[in-house]
């Protein structure tokens, strides 16, 4: 209770500080239940507010959400900070009738660069002062004047794709004798996901890299519109299969925030169990990917064995190897009995012991370390400027984790460590994956030993109109899901900000100025998913 009171106080202090600083010209409101401050500002104060949040308050940009109503454009900039600080939402309302532009915040916050480009591409909103407002989602076959996320665009019909007159022509930046451009993708030689990487070089080193994504654009946000919540849940769960539980969790939490549902504590504890099991499996798979990229065959096989064992463990206990079908608004669909809890705890522990053994072998294999150390560097400043999230940011010394910053489920009641490394190279990312897997195993052991008794879902979830933000720390980093429900309980707007989208933005820091043969290793040490990025 005392904690709740001090939280309220702190939040009011923050609200007052903002109101005072802007001479009571902005409208500030607080929502303690959601731990957020909402600031309604106009276009003149936006940049100043952003600068204050980023520079003075050390906040990071989480998401930019655009909504369309009959008369207005509603923009919402979501910021989050250090642990135990509230999220700050800046709201900007623009009249649709005046053909206005939006002031771009990208010049001061690089993290907004791709988010503004996405809003430009999907809504046709022009961001004034944006350094490079070019297509990101729509590829060349899209007619220039059709913006798929606008309400007047019918997403259910096949796309308006006339035959392409001029296929995509990458442009060269590097002008030097012997300069050449090497395209990699969109179809890769193995089971890698579709994306195109254009590497410019004059010889051995990659001088400039230009990635092109959204080959896998399935328009999840658009096809969710007008659908029932339980249908959109399937989309939230299945747009990125390797982090499905985290994303369905963020979606469910948004719906629960709208409908003000209180969850039984067993449901929340089980959510932590499944989320950490997913993180554990994901990290084992990422480690296998790094071993594979360095062509260390035995280590790849060993890590592959552990990954399959984690998949089988998930399959045995939940029915599904990738933890699909476990979440629903109001709780989870599956309970674990004492025996299963024991099996899961000991199963994860056994896999972790083998993983630790593998790690010990890896860190004494000098030929392996040579490929990772001081390769693919991302500095702390770069990570902060680009708002990088997840293991990549934490390996560069930026220890932000939504489980601590904005605790959800029961994370505020269990103690765990958020590992951090300083070097920001491939080896730091590998070490971080190991340490996070260790933490997940520990959390699982702790929480499985005393699951609170009770129901596994709220009795009833009465859908109400409204909007809320749901978030989760997915295996790859912070994800934000914005959901707006209409009067009929259908989804009116669904916006996803995913860790892969956020982190691919900073990928060029790691890949530039390194040799060609390092490229696959840098990619593997980032371990990002294009399905999660492209949506």
């Amino acid at each position, binding site marked *: 209770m005392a904690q709740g009171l001090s939280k309220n106080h702190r939040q009011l202090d923050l609200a007052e500080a903002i109101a005072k600083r802007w001479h009571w010209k902005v409208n500030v409101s607080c929502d303690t239940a959601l731990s957020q401050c909402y600031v309604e500002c106009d276009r003149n104060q936006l940049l100043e507010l952003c600068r204050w949040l980023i520079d003075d308050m050390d906040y990071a940009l989480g998401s930019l959400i655009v909504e369309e109503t009959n008369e207005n454009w509603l923009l919402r900039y979501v910021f989050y900070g250090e642990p135990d600080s509230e999220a700050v939402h800046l709201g900007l309302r623009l009249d649709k009738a005046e053909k206005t532009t939006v002031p771009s915040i990208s010049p001061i916050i690089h993290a907004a660069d791709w988010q503004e480009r996405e809003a430009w591409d999907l809504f046709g909103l022009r961001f004034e002062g944006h350094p490079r407002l070019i297509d990101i989602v729509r590829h060349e076959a899209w007619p220039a004047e059709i913006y798929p996320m606008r309400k007047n665009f019918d997403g*259910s019909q*096949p796309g308006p794709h006339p035959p392409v007159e001029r296929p995509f022509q990458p442009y060269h930046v590097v002008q030097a004798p012997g300069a050449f451009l090497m395209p990699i993708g969109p*179809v890769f030689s193995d*089971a890698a996901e579709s994306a195109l990487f254009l590497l410019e070089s004059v010889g051995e080193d990659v001088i400039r890299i230009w990635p092109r994504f959204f080959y896998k654009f399935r328009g999840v946000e658009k096809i969710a519109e007008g659908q029932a919540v339980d249908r959109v849940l399937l989309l939230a769960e299945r747009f*990125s299969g390797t982090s499905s539980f985290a994303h369905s969790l963020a979606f469910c939490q948004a719906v629960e925030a709208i409908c003000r549902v209180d969850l039984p504590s067993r449901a929340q504890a089980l959510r932590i169990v499944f989320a950490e099991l997913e993180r554990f499996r994901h990290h084992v798979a990422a480690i296998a990917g790094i071993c594979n990229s360095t062509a260390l065959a035995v280590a790849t096989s060993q890590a592959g064995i552990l990954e399959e064992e984690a998949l089988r463990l998930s399959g045995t206990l939940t029915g*599904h190897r990738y933890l699909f*079908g476990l979440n629903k608004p109001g709780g989870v669909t599956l309970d674990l009995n004492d025996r299963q809890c024991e099996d899961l705890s000991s199963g994860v522990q056994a896999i972790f012991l083998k993983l630790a053994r593998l790690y010990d072998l890896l860190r004494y*294999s000098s030929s392996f370390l040579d490929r990772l150390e001081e390769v693919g560097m991302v500095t702390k400043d770069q990570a902060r400027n680009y708002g990088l999230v997840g293991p990549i940011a934490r390996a560069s010394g930026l220890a932000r984790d939504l489980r601590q910053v904005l605790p959800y489920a029961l994370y505020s009641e269990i103690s765990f460590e958020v590992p951090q490394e300083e070097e920001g190279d491939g080896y730091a990312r590998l070490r971080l994956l190991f340490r996070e897997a260790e933490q997940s195993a520990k959390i699982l052991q702790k929480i499985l030993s005393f699951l609170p008794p009770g129901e596994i879902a709220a009795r009833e979830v009465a859908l109400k109109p409204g909007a809320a933000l749901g978030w989760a720390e997915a295996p790859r980093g912070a994800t934000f899901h914005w959901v707006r429900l209409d009067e009929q309980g259908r989804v009116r707007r669904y916006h996803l900000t995913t860790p892969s989208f956020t982190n691919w933005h900073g990928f060029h820091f790691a890949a530039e100025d390194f040799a060609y043969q390092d490229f696959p290793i840098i990619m593997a040490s980032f371990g990002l998913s294009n*399905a*999660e990025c492209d949506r």
Partner: protein
Amino acid sequence: MWEWVWEGIRSGIVTTAYPAREETASGVSPGFPTDLPRTFAAAGEASVAASCCPTEALLSEDQQVVLREPRCIHCYRCLRQTETPLAWQWQGNYEWAVSPHPRVELAKKFGRSFRRSLHLRILDAGACGACLSEIEQLNKPYYNMHRLGFFVTPTPRDADVLVVAGPMTEHMRQPLLSAYEAMPTPKAVLALGACAIFGGVFGTSFASMGGVASLIPVDILVPGCPPPPLAILHALLALIGRVEPAACELNSSSPGGERGD
């Protein structure tokens, strides 16, 4: 380096005995509802029972509920989320690849010469990552498809089978057609997972075309979301005539089958 050699030997052989013997380990497959069709007392009851399915995999015909495996996405709603849980169980089988062609034609396509060496080209047309992760498992010790003569090849010029996952996004249309055209004949197309078969949860929309059959003819379908590695192995073996594909009626209203010629 000797530690690695020792580590490899120490862990022994974990590879499944499939197809020589059935794999009995738990957790290798998400399974499908079993014992269908199920007969209900009234036609109304049957349609209520089938209505919990979000992808119309459960179909009510008169008083019966039947399952169309190609449309099932393992959401478990018919098992866990209906008010009166339907009394069926899920079975962890995995030999469920089906073909829109008659079996004779399927066997004729490659003949005997491909039975011990088949090269695959994997194409991601918007997959969520789970299908691709399961393919990667095929290359790893537990499934090790090399022992059966299946190889992933880096170029379509060497490929015999195009493995397509994902709901066929508009943006991947051109890369897919280019890859397909570059393949030498005889060539086959394997539609991997519910998305590649009928669009999965993404369906047909402005951004995705609802399955690969809308673009190129498909020779074998592997239901599942995602299909487990053993189901993919079964499909590949069925493609070269080493095992029987599952018996499943793919009539004209069934997904994926209509354009296969």
